[in-house]
């Protein structure tokens, strides 16, 4: 009998003999063997099926992921349809509208030479609508 941590055989004392002699001899119940082996066989089949299912599940998941990635990468970049363009309102800072020659403004000069000329043509729009194409979704 190998003894302690050092592996040096432990001396066998009378107490050791007594202890060994006191080891009970077990007589197993009748039918225990058949019962245990039958249960073990069922459990083995269950375990085997579980392992197969687990492996199949993992393989299917990996295959689906790879297929999805390949399909996604193989798609050409589709042209963006015109309908996808959304009008975006860009505010335009209004230019000061010149009023009528201001007779009301106090004139610092003596002459009327600094009176602004009357605006010609149409007035500029206050704001304009410009269409900007949307970014293509990823």
């Amino acid at each position: 009998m190998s003894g302690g941590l050092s592996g040096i055989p432990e001396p066998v004392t009378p107490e050791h003999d007594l202890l060994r002699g006191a080891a009970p001899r077990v007589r197993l119940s009748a039918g225990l063997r058949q019962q245990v082996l039958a249960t073990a066989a069922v459990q083995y089949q269950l375990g085997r099926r579980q392992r197969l299912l687990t492996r199949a599940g993992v393989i299917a998941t990996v295959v689906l992921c790879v297929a999805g990635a390949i399909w996604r990468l193989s798609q050409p970049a589709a042209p963006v349809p015109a309908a996808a363009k959304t009008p975006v309102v860009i505010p335009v800072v209004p230019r000061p509208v010149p009023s009528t020659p201001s007779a009301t403004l106090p004139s610092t000069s003596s002459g009327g030479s600094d009176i602004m000329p009357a605006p010609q043509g149409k007035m500029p729009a206050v704001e304009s609508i410009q269409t900007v194409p949307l970014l293509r979704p990823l």
Partner: protein
Amino acid sequence: MDGDFQLQVRHCAQRLSQSPEAALAELFDLTAERLVRYAMSVTSSQADAEDALQGAFSRIARRPQLLVAAKLPWSYMLRAVRNEALRLLQRSSSQKRLQVPTSAVQSTPEQQVLQQEVSESVRRILKSLPAEQSEVVTLKHWEDLTFAEIAEVLGISQNTVASRYRYAMEKLQRALEGLVR
């Protein structure tokens, strides 16, 4: 140290991956009595010990690769039975008394009776030790395990095993003085 027995267990365990049902049957024939004896030291009941054996075999059958890969298959089996026995103890606080049928010894009836009485006394003294100490002594003397293997079965360090064994043997030597001739 019964190295042959452990070697046989290892061979059976390795055959589990090729022919599981035959290997399980062989493993049962080889180990069942010893496993039940060990489980009885935990449960104090043969019925519970046999249930523990059945549970352990079911678990081994369900995942045989763990036993195949085990470094010490016999220790692994003892640990599996111990875990089942402890689970059973937790589930039902069984109060069944230990009833151990003893085998017929090749001796006179008087000697048999005397031997039986001595064995009963030793088992009683062993039972009187703290559970963790008697378990170490049981594994050491009944199952012939080394401290390293006991540490593997119980999931504790070798130093703890050695100190529990030393304390147990000190008590046992005092208690067994009268029986030693």
